């Protein structure tokens, strides 16, 4: 543990606003909500016609507060996809103004407001590398099997790339798939994919929005190197009971939400299940028949507004995947999260959120090999406490501070065998660690042109007993074994993580953004297969495995035009990564007490140039995203210690997404993706061992897979749209022109001619049509 009190005091002194005498000001505060449903609108903005250049956006709970000079003001509240609202305010004393916005665009009005307020676009004031997407804004983006999916959609943004068809996970700015912190209502979701990447675990009916941070990381987030995906669940309609759902070819879903306690609260319950296994039972093939492939998930959330200053939330997620091939093997894995939150308004200026969070991910692999049945079980469990404060000091300073602590328990793969199996039972000790952090960050607007956010996150990992801890010689043999008692500190890692982001507004349409941040990661995912698989192992930092440390500098140019209908951004970044993990050849990850001896450590660097052009309103909307990037690693023991391309390195990555409202009934959409093939290690020769061809390899990742490209089309037909009932049909085709994108590339003996070898490319999804019926009443 560390002494954070002194540091916090010193940091507080750095806040200029605290040292300045203030002129007479009043604070306007409140919550911004959707008029029809009562859902809070995080990120909605508030400004005043009389005060150009001054504005604030609502926090995750829709809360805003802003200090203004006394006087008669006109408040302007706006949010993408909603009608802008103006409210006259008699700002002579601290005033609570709760705002309800009605959904729907009213462009004429927006133009008037914008020209009169000189209101800046959100994109200009947000820190570099941050993007917020609402479910509403992505509902027409075509996706695989017609399930709208927020985690799939962010992979169409610059700097975020998919790990490929049939692969779970994604890469952000050249980082690894385990370097993304995926939060659902503040709880870590360790495996965010269903059916090995076919779907994400986020049921779009239960999700409100996602904020993605790939640079300029706020100090309140930590624990992963590359990005944060902060996903918020819907609160539920507090005005009336609603039901909505969808029937699809692969999955169906149903959501019920409504008011609680005389509209002082609301709830939402959402469930989803696939039924691909119903088809497998119809199959004639004996292996497929009786095999199980399904997932289900369940989201629930309730909130209650105790009084004006207190609101509590309880939310939970449970999802499970089962994939069993009869008599061969099976995989099942499950994520569980639970969050209790308490929003408390101490005063207009001080907003507090207290969270108690539980998160669990467990995964079981059964190998049903003849008589040799064995089940390998791994798990990670977090108990997490987090306290956040937003302190709206004055118009030019907003202070965020807080602390958190997580107790991680990981079970790194234990095997249970049948009595007559060839395997012994292997029980590996649980690993325990306490990850804590305190942070402080000030958003300082010294003038209308400048906004500077600066702060520090002090992170700490305490590796604790009980358990055996080892040291190893160069060859990986155990040198010493030390047993530690319960909660006895084995190793402590303390890391200050400075975070700075500056925005400079050149004019009403243009801003420059510069950011530097350091991030530290203490939970590592070990996987020596070519994709994130449920059999991977989570390992906290130990005496051998050091925290991964990332540093990133990013510079961005942001421009909006046509009354903010269009936005353009161009960003460059450079990152360095320390203590990256790789594996010795033939490393054993399963049932290996000394897995650390099989690891190699090194560093990485990644840099790139990302461009993004988006059209936000009108009949035709969408975006074009292009990134030019590089990601490399240097690991002692690999490639003779020379730099080599990381597996996620993609030189070019292009995404084009467009949605067109053809009529009141029809919305058409299309998306196109192109990227350079990922690096791969191809053989450079072969020889025979006992007559079987075996391959030799040269430099790591020296070749490239074929380029990836794909066009998806979608169409939505609104069959009914009344205030009581809404129904629509969604049609989609994934990979329209049937591009054979690589899933696996096998080097093998030619089955037709055993004297020859061949290269087999397997494609998963060629031309996948889907239809879904969605309803809402």
């Amino acid at each position, binding site marked *: 543990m560390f002494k954070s009190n002194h540091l916090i005091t010193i940091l507080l002194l750095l806040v200029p606003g605290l040292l300045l005498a203030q002129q007479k000001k009043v604070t306007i505060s409140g919550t911004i909500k959707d008029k029809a449903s009562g859902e809070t609108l995080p990120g909605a903005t508030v400004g005043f016609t009389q005060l150009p250049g001054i504005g604030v956006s609502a926090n995750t709970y829709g809360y805003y507060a802003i200090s203004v000079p006394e006087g008669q003001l006109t408040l302007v509240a706006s949010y993408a996809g909603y009608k802008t609202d103006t409210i006259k305010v008699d700002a002579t004393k601290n005033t609570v103004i709760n705002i309800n916005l009605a959904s729907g665009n009213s462009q004429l009005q927006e133009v008037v407001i914008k020209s009169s307020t000189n209101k800046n676009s959100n994109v200009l004031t947000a820190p570099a590398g941050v993007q917020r997407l609402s479910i509403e804004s992505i509902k027409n983006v075509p996706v695989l099997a017609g399930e709208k999916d927020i985690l799939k959609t962010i992979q169409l943004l610059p700097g975020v790339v998919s790990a490929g068809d*049939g692969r779970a996970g994604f890469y952000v700015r050249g980082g690894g798939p385990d370097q993304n912190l995926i939060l659902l209502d503040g709880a870590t979701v360790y495996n965010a994919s269903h059916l*090995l990447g076919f779907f994400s675990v986020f049921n779009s009916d239960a999700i409100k929005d996602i904020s993605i941070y790939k640079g300029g990381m706020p100090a309140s987030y930590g624990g992963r190197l590359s990005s944060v995906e902060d996903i918020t669940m819907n609160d539920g309609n507090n005005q009336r009971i609603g039901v909505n759902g969808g029937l699809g*070819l692969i999955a169906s879903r149903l959501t019920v939400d409504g008011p609680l306690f005389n509209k002082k609260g609301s709830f939402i319950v959402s469930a989803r299940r696939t039924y691909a*296994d119903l088809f497998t039972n119809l*199959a004639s093939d004996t*292996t497929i028949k009786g*095999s199980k*492939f399904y997932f289900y998930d369940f989201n629930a959330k309730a909130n209650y507004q105790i009084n004006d200053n207190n609101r509590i939330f309880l939310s939970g997620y449970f999802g499970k995947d089962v*994939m069993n*091939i009869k008599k*061969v*093997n099976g*995989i099942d894995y499950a994520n569980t999260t639970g969050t209790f939150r308490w929003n408390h308004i101490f005063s207009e200026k001080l907003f507090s959120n207290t969270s108690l969070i539980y998160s669990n991910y467990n995964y079981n692999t059964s190998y049903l*090999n*003849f008589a040799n049945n064995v089940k390998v079980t791994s798990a990670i469990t977090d108990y997490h406490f987090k306290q956040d404060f937003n302190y709206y000091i004055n118009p030019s300073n907003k202070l965020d501070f807080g602390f958190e602590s997580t107790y991680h328990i990981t079970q790194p793969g234990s095997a249970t065998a049948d009595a007559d199996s*060839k395997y*012994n039972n*292997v029980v590996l000790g649980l690993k325990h660690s306490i990850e804590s952090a305190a942070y402080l960050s000030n958003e300082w607007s010294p003038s209308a042109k400048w906004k500077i956010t600066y702060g520090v996150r002090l992170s700490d990992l305490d590796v604790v007993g009980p358990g055996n801890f080892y040291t190893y010689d160069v060859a990986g043999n155990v040198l010493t074994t030390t047993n530690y008692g319960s909660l006895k500190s084995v190793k402590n890692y303390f890391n200050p993580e400075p975070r700075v982001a500056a925005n400079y507004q050149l004019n009403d349409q243009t801003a420059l953004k510069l950011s530097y941040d350091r991030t530290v990661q203490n939970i590592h995912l070990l*996987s020596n*297969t*070519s994709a994130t*698989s449920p*059999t991977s192992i989570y390992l906290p930092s130990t005496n051998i495995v050091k925290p991964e440390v990332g540093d990133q500098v990013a510079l961005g140019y942001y421009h909006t035009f046509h009354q903010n209908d269009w936005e353009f951004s161009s960003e460059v970044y450079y990152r360095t990564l320390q203590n990256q993990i790789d*594996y010795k*050849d*033939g490393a054993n990850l*399963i049932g290996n007490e000394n897995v650390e001896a099989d690891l190699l450590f090194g560093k990485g660097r990644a840099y790139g140039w990302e461009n993004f052009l988006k059209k936000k309103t009108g009949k035709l909307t969408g975006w074009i995203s292009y990134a030019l990037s590089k990601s490399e690693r240097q690991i002692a023991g690999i490639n003779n210690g020379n730099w080599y391309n990381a*597996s996620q390195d993609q030189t070019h990555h292009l995404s084009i997404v467009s949605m067109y409202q053809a009529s009141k009934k029809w919305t058409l959409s299309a998306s196109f993706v192109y990227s350079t093939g990922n690096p791969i*290690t191809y*053989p*450079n*020769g*072969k*020889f025979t*061992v*006992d007559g*079987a061809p*075996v*391959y*030799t*390899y040269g*430099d*790591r990742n020296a*070749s490239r897979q*074929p380029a990836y490209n794909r066009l998806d089309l979608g169409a939505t037909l609104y069959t009914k749209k009344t205030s009581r009932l809404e129904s629509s049909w969604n049609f989609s085709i994934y990979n329209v022109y049937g591009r*054979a994108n690589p*899933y*696996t590339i*096998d*080097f093998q003996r030619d089955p037709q001619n055993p*004297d*020859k070898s*061949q*290269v*087999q490319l*397997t494609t*998963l999804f*060629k*031309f*996948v049509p889907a239809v879904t019926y969605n309803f809402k009443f």
Partner: protein
Amino acid sequence: MKTLKTIFILFVVACAAISCTKTITPVLPDNGTQLVIEGVVSDTTGPYHVNISKTVNFYADNVDPSVSGATVTITDVTSGITDNLSETSAGVYTTHTIVGAYGHLYRMTAFVNGKTYTATSTMPQLVKIDSVSFDYSDKKQIRPVAWYQDPAQFTNYYKYSLTVNDVRLKRFSTFEDRLSNGRYIRDKADVDTMEIKNHNVVKFSLVGIDVGAYTFLSEAADVAYNNSSLAAPATPVSNISGGCVGYFSAQTVSSATGTASY
């Protein structure tokens, strides 16, 4: 991880989506050829052989060009006997006197084109195969099963090889007792589709090897049959020093024969 892929492909098939494979011919790196040495001493009746050849381009035929004119010796270090091998056919070097003995340490030295390659290997104690049976659950891929007791007092490494109607299959698989020490083992050997048919006579050879040979052979098996799911496939690490691929193994062999019949 092959199984993961199978699961996924089956899933996709079940979803009525279309997964497919096609043959491609990507440009492969070419870093020249490497020397290949494969040498064996066993507890079966000699003579024993050391084969020396070169690697070939991936798209070439599966025939390793032999390397002649090497000087090869095998020494039983435990008993101090050295055997100078003779090249009996191109690239095949054959022992004269040496006899395999359990627990003995053997050293192979090969002098090829001015460079010396050496390896040592210790012959483990014999592990006997009890019998062979067959798994008929997939009639298209009948898999032979070896029955044997893994000795608890040793760390054991195995190679499985098969003959079908006296023809040796061009395939091998490996097993170690890391998670199975002291168990009674019933283990299937991998075969290709239709390699074993009804009424075929199958000889299952349980080959006991040491850790150096096992490391090479298990990595070789991974690269040969499972390369697409390896995050970073690499040339199998040889137990022969001097910069070549291949292995030298002092090994035990125990065989059992059965007839596939259903």
